[in-house]
Each structure stands twice: as structure tokens, then as C-alpha cells.
């Protein structure tokens, strides 16, 4: 002890938290070592400064409120503990993805089934498939139907009553109606395509 410095023991020496024997040894060393004595002085000063630091007390009644608040939080956490289930966490992303996909699929099929207007292509398809027998109800429809078809199909001299999806669209329904009503029955895309063809001069009603 006499030959080596005791810096690391000084905080405990100053605060008198060393056991008696060690405290005595350090004390003897300080008597003989000016460097450690000076260091012990500095350590003592620091502790005197720190002792003046009084932490503000917490608000009155704080400690009597700790437990009820913890209880409340613990109960809340327990209620929602299932959200922390590792299986749920592990599969949350795939489940969410499946849910989104199913929702989107439903949305698409819903849109399709609820669509009031068949598409321009659908008209063409139906015209191709249903070319049996009966004449068109009027020239306008015939002209429209014919113009909606590829040229080679038109060449087949389509005749007959064309019914597309029965409940949603029927060329029969259009018999004797104005062009305005015909346009009202078309979707935006169909109208757009129709306008384009009108502009191009490839269709005239």
C-alpha cells in the first residue's frame, strides 16, 4: 500500500464506506503520499458539491398513485395481450396480405357483377356469338352493332335479336330508343371509344 497509489479507493475512503482495516491502511498511505493526499482533497470537494444537490421531491401523493396506474396499465395490456401473440406477429403480414387480396378480389368481382353497362368489347363478343335469325329492331342499333364489330365479322351480315346478359343489357331494350339513351347505357370507356370512332369517321349513327 505504501508503494502504490490508492486512487481507486479514495471515493470510498472519503465517504467512509471502506472496512476499518482498509480505511486505516489508506489513511496511512495518505500520510506518506502527497499525490494521493491531493487527489483525496479533490475527491472530497466533489462530494461536498454533490451533497448540495437536493433532488426535488415528487409531487405530494405520487407514490400512493403508482400502484393503481400500474394496475390499470397491466389490465389494459392483458386485455390486448392477444395482439402480442408471436404467432399473430409472425403471420400478421401474410394474413394482412391475404385479407387485402381477398378484399380486392371481392371488389373486382362486385364491380363486375354490379356493372350496369357491358363493355364495348362485350358488345362485339355478344354480336359474334348471337347471330341467329331475327332482324335488328331498327337500323340504328344494327348500324351500331355492326360498327362495333371487326370488319370481317360485319361481313357476315349479322342479323337477329341480340341479347347480352339478359338482365343487364339488351339490344332489344334499345329498340326504338334515341341515340341519347343508347349513350346513357354505355360506360364511360364505351362512350369514349364511341366518340373516338365518331371522330375518326369510322362510325356514324
Amino acid at each position, binding site marked *: 500500500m505504501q508503494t502504490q497509489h490508492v*486512487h*481507486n*479507493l*479514495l*471515493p*470510498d475512503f472519503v*465517504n467512509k*464506506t471502506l472496512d476499518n482495516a482498509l480505511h486505516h491502511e489508506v489513511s496511512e498511505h495518505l500520510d506518506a503520499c502527497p499525490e494521493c493526499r491531493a487527489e483525496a482533497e*479533490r*475527491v472530497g*470537494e*466533489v*462530494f461536498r*458539491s*454533490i451533497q*448540495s*444537490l*437536493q*433532488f*426535488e421531491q*415528487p*409531487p405530494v401523493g*405520487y*407514490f400512493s398513485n*403508482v*400502484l393503481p*396506474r*400500474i*394496475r390499470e*396499465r*397491466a389490465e389494459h*395490456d392483458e386485455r390486448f395481450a392477444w395482439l402480442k401473440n408471436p404467432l399473430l406477429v409472425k403471420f400478421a403480414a401474410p394474413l394482412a396480405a391475404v385479407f387485402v387480396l381477398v378484399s380486392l378480389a371481392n371488389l373486382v368481382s362486385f364491380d363486375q357483377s354490379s356493372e350496369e353497362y357491358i363493355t364495348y368489347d362485350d358488345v362485339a363478343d355478344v354480336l359474334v356469338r348471337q347471330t341467329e335469325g331475327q332482324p335488328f329492331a331498327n337500323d340504328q342499333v344494327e348500324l351500331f352493332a355492326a360498327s362495333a364489330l371487326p370488319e370481317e365479322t360485319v361481313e357476315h351480315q349479322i342479323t337477329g335479336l341480340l341479347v347480352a346478359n339478359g338482365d343487364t343489357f339488351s339490344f332489344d331494350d334499345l329498340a326504338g330508343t334515341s341515340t341519347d339513351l343508347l349513350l346513357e347505357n354505355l360506360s364511360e370507356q364505351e362512350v369514349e371509344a364511341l366518340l373516338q370512332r365518331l371522330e375518326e369517321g369510322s362510325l356514324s349513327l
Partner: protein
Amino acid sequence: MSPSSDVELIQRFQQGEEAAFNELVRRYQEKVYWLARRFVNDHDNADDIVQDVFIKAYDALKNFRNESGFYTWIYRITVNASLNAVRRERVRNFFRIDEQFEYEDTGTESPTEKVELQEQRALIEKAIETLPEKQKAVFILRYYDELPYEEIANILKTSVGGLKANYFHAVQKIGEYLKRANATRP
């Protein structure tokens, strides 16, 4: 009737007796609060830590095997939570443009004394705040909580060997900080 030991309370809690947990909270809430408070220097932050520590304890106690003792364990959780709070605060301070000091009315000092006391307190808090994490933890646990080095080693999961040096260096750095700060004060 003698009070139940921590081990007994934990066993009772693990067997479903919720009141045993309440007793543990009542027993340790002040120690946890003051330990946290010395790290974060702020009541609200310390309160957040107290809440987090006991909620964590509530969840983890169901599987607690009492290998290190509840006291050491709860101290360890508190030290870690406090150090995390200090880190978060450092990040916040980094982005803070200006800092406001609120002077609290302690009721007995003159306005000048109040300001001086407040300044001195802020200075010491700052000096402790600037310590490296381990030195800070050792300083708080040794000086304020007066824990034996063996206990501190258990809490910090380190060997006893370097703790006395950590403590001394912490005191030395606080002293150097105060000296520099006082030298530049008007």
C-alpha cells in the same frame, strides 16, 4: 406477523395471487423511482420509467426463476430503462434548438439564492449527465444507492474488478467538469 420475503411474494404471485405483486410494487417503488430520477433528472421521465419497469416486471415475473434475486433484477431493469431514456433524451436534445430552464419555487430562498442554487444544481446534474454510461451507472448505484460492489457487478452484469476504478474516474470527471464550468462562469 413478519413481512413476506421477495421470494415468497413472487411465488404467491406466480400462483395467481395478484395482491403479492402489489406488495412488491409498494416495497420497491421508491427505490426504483429515485434510481431512475438520478439518471434522468426529471420527475416525468422517472415516472415513465417506474411505470415501464413494473409493467415489465408484471409480465416477466410469471416466469421469473429467482436466480439473481428480485432486488438485483428490478435494479437491472431500472438501470437499463434509465440508460435508454437518457439515450432518447440525448437524441431529442440534439434536435432541440433552444433549451429552457424552469426555475422552481422552493419557497425559502431569496430570488438570487434561488437562481444560484438552481444553477449549481443544473451544473452538477450536467456533470453527472456527461459521464460515460457505465461510469454513470456505477456512480449512481454506489454513491446514491450505497450498494456494495458485488451487487453493482450483478446488476450491471460485469466483474467487480473495474468498478472501483469506474467509480473513481466518475468522481474525477465530475470534479473536472465542475472546475471548468466554474472557471468560465461570470
